[in-house]
């Protein structure tokens, strides 16, 4: 991003603004009546800039997925506000959600579990269009094929079952389905975990391409900053239900403020510098 573009973007209001978000789960222990509470989100504040990629990192159990579910309105927060395109959405009723749901789409980690194995690839992509009554009949199938080609899948594969696709291809299919309703916010919940490095890089490149064509804003949840860190505009670090650090990539990488962020970065960077050292040593 050039400096000019950066200032232009910064001048626009944030697409999503989360203020003091709380979410508590009450769970019961197995075979016992005792209950215990988990404060999954504690006073979370977060802003997502339009047409930017924000990476949300943190160890497992830090509340990343809960935050994503609240943003995608799959969970109702217990307190706080979520503002999306200038509207408070955390307490919307079902009717308002019909308008809202297409605007915010989510791609999950395990796409094999998220895609119906009894559907063909084209049916999977077409389903949201059908549900929202955007397309029907022949144009529906045609639109599904267009979307598949947009994410780098051949339209010849429209009739295949998702089980015949590789992990990376299934993730592309899930992205095509999410794109069908022309959302503004795409939440990718650990969508790259479990894919090999080459596939991760290909998917990140795809995200960079469709960001331009569809003016998309991304929230990408990950526990591994290595590749994502290179593509992200903003990085938010989550720890025990709170956002402990949030800033541009340059700022977070360059001068991490929190001990937790430093620990997280060190683990990634140790591996990389060991690799660079091995390379340098071999070349001399």
């Amino acid at each position: 991003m050039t400096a000019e573009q950066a200032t232009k973007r910064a001048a626009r209001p944030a697409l999503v603004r989360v203020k003091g978000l709380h979410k508590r789960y009450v769970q019961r222990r197995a075979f016992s009546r005792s209950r215990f509470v988990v404060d999954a989100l504690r006073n979370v504040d977060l802003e997502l800039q339009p047409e930017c990629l924000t990476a949300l990192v943190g160890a497992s159990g830090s509340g990343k997925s809960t935050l994503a579910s609240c943003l995608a309105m799959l969970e109702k927060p217990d307190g706080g506000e979520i503002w999306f395109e200038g509207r408070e959405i955390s307490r919307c009723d079902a009717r308002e959600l019909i308008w809202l749901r297409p605007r915010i789409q989510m791609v999950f980690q395990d796409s094999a579990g998220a895609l119906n194995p009894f559907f063909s690839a084209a049916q999977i992509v077409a389903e949201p269009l059908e549900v929202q009554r955007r397309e029907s009949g022949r144009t529906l199938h045609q639109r599904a094929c267009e979307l598949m080609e947009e994410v780098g899948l051949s339209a010849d594969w429209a009739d295949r079952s998702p089980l015949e696709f590789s992990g990376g291809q299934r993730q592309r299919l899930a992205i095509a389905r999410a794109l069908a309703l022309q959302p503004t916010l795409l939440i990718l919940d650990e969508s790259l975990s479990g894919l090999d490095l080459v596939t991760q890089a290909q998917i990140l490149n795809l995200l960079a391409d469709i960001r331009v064509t569809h003016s998309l804003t991304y929230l990408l949840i990950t526990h591994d900053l290595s590749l994502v860190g290179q593509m992200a505009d903003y990085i938010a670090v989550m720890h025990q239900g709170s956002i402990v650090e949030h800033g541009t990539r340059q700022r977070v990488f360059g001068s991490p403020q929190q001990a937790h962020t430093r620990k997280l970065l060190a683990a990634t960077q140790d591996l990389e510098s060991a690799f660079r050292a091995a390379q340098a040593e071999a070349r001399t």
Partner: protein
Amino acid sequence: MKSIPFGASSFDGVPGLLRVCQLSVSYASRGHSPVRALRQLDLEMAKGEVVGILGESGCGKSTLARSIIGLLPADARVDGSILFRNEELMGLPEKQLRRIRGAKISLVHQEPGLALSPVMRVGDQIAEVIRAHRSLARKTRKLEVESILREVRLADSGRIYAAYPHQLSGGELHRVAIAQALACRPDLIIADEPTRSLDVTVQAEILGVLRNLNQAFGTAILFITHNPALLAGFADRIAVMYAGRVVENGGGSKVFGRPLHPYTKGLLDLVPRSTRTEYSAAGSHLPAIPGGPPDLKSLNHGCAFEPRCAPKTEICRIENPEELTPEAGHRVSCFNHDR
């Protein structure tokens, strides 16, 4: 089956431990030609050596792991030879394989959470391995398990012993799986992407545990991964796999410092540079190798990497490259390795 004289031919003159020779594995697929997961693969390992297998998903890494330990599905067609400590493992009766599996060669799975029984205490599951191979009194067995748990840096061995898998964290489960693999002091541990889906911090800890085992007991490790950064400073030798073959094989520093195969170069280019102070402009692209792994049902005569290769020439489409040795201890299968 061919028999190959063993020992002197292994790398660097170190006595050999494992020699996989011309190994081919194919899986039947209904209505299609068979999937050729491994195609005449060669690999050797010396005693106490750490060998890293590097490759994308779908290149046959896991099939290689499973054929060495003799756990291929029943419908797999296997050909070739696997010599382990001068003993031919191929065609060995199941009874004798069981004597080796777990005791001499053991496997750490990708998802230890799925490999462990959910209804049995993890300590008992480790003890089970010992019981299968060594005759020890119950009490000494328990003491042995607790000392193994401490070796994999699970200090609170009493609690871990009595825990069920669901009560442990991901990192603890991985260490239990390593403890289980270690229980009988095997000569070879095969670690099949043992750090996949783990936090980076936990990943580093698991690598540390494996490195310690190698140094303390001289256990040879076959470490399977798709991330070159994990092998740095850890693997003595690196074998790069593509479409069921080893396409480059050499000492860790040689492969990292002077990669010869275009596929290896592509993989190494992807190791992130988040430590750099000057950052690539956002919106630019990562240097990803284009395309995906080839369809193993329909491979033609040429080099399997040809469709994705940048420096390819006319011959790559027609002929499959033979293995060359451009420098001592560094082999590559590519016509254009010197470009």
